[in-house]
């Protein structure tokens, strides 16, 4: 089975657009301080999650392979 993914949200960058919580409510929640946080830090790979990370307007979401530490998002596409 593929490596699990580790989610990180840079709260200093986060503007609380709600993009991630709207796109992938299973993985993100935006609290009352308008900062997004992952509901769990390490999860099974899921395209919905990488999509949410890709569409963040301030590129505040990082996804890393938990085993290899290789980046999933951002990748070389950007």
């Amino acid at each position, binding site marked *: 089975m593929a490596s699990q993914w580790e989610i990180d949200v840079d709260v200093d960058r986060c503007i609380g657009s709600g993009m991630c919580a709207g796109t992938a409510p299973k993985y993100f929640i935006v609290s009352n301080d308008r900062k997004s946080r992952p509901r769990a830090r390490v999860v099974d790979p899921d395209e*919905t999650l990488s999509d949410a990370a890709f569409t963040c307007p301030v590129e505040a979401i990082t996804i890393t392979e938990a085993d290899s530490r290789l980046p999933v998002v951002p990748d070389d596409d950007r």
Partner: protein
Amino acid sequence: MSEKKLAFPFVTPVPLELPGEYAGLRTQQPVAAVILPTGDPAWLVTRYTDVRQLYTDPRLSRAAAVQSGAPRCNQVGPDPDSIVSKDPPEHTRLRRLVAPAFTARRIEAMRPRIARLVEVLLDAMEEAGRPADLIDRLAFPLPITVICELLGIPEIDRNRFREWSEAFMSTTAHSVDAVRTAQARFEGYLTELIKDKRAHPTEDLLGVLIAARDTHDRLTEKELVNLGMTVLVAGFETTATQIANFVVTLLRHPDQLAQLRAEPHLIPDAIEELLRYVPRRSDGGAIRVAVEDVELGGVTIRAGEAVIPAIGSANRDGIQFPDADRLDLTRTDTSHLAFGFGSHHCLGAQLARVEMQIVFGALLRRFPGLHLAVPEADLTWRIGTLVLSPVTLPVTW
């Protein structure tokens, strides 16, 4: 729904002031039954927390709201192939294609170009002399030039875009036929342009989207045409409107305008406060339709019923914003919902912010005596449309 329904959108006695109904609704009836101009019923959601909840509830669907027969505010609803008409994951597929062009990082890199464009426009305005129509001179040409450059669309055609976009926002100013004709012409225009770009590939956003279709089959031809159209219209219509409305609002608050001129470092916060304070359209955010029963603000929204996020009201909710009805350009809370919230959060939010910051920085610096060339009461406001905006904005200095 209850028997007594309010007619919505509400009418405001003073342009750009929030209709008085909202304050009462927030405390008495935060999710209220209303009747739309089309005769369709809907639930109007007026509190900040409820509006935010509405925006991230996957059971409140945009796709269901563009089905034929769904309740709507204006004459002709958006196309089901539009990015604004889809729910995740379909929406996400399209959003991923355009998101990289609008990240804060990419937009920051455009700052020098935008600043240059503003200077050129203001040079021309100064040279042509007083009085000047600020909408024709600055509010409209700036955002349309920027979005045309980003997309790779010849800005020479901009007056046509303006005409077509006005038809889309119409309630009674245009007939249904006129709106459909504008839509067909706009689609025809972009179809031709895309054909040209296929023959002569470009690296602008439209070029990127064409490659996403032709090389990777990531979207349909109809989605491609509509995405180009949506990004173009959303890219200029809203910013142009709000530049004009922010000028009117600032001139109504001369003390705060003077402070802003004296302390230009306040401009980014001031723009956020103006975004919070100044309503942009009479109807709020895009309508959603429940795909199953949803509890919201103490009301059960039944499957098939429509909800409207009253953005202007949410932004004046005193629970979220202390002294919410007061414009305070030094306020640092930027949690307003002017750009929406959730998966449809405005794609161009960062671009709009940067354009506004540069526009107001330059206007205050170069035209310290800027004021209306006519009494404010003589301004003509657009009618028969959801957009709140003066038709022209004659200024002098």
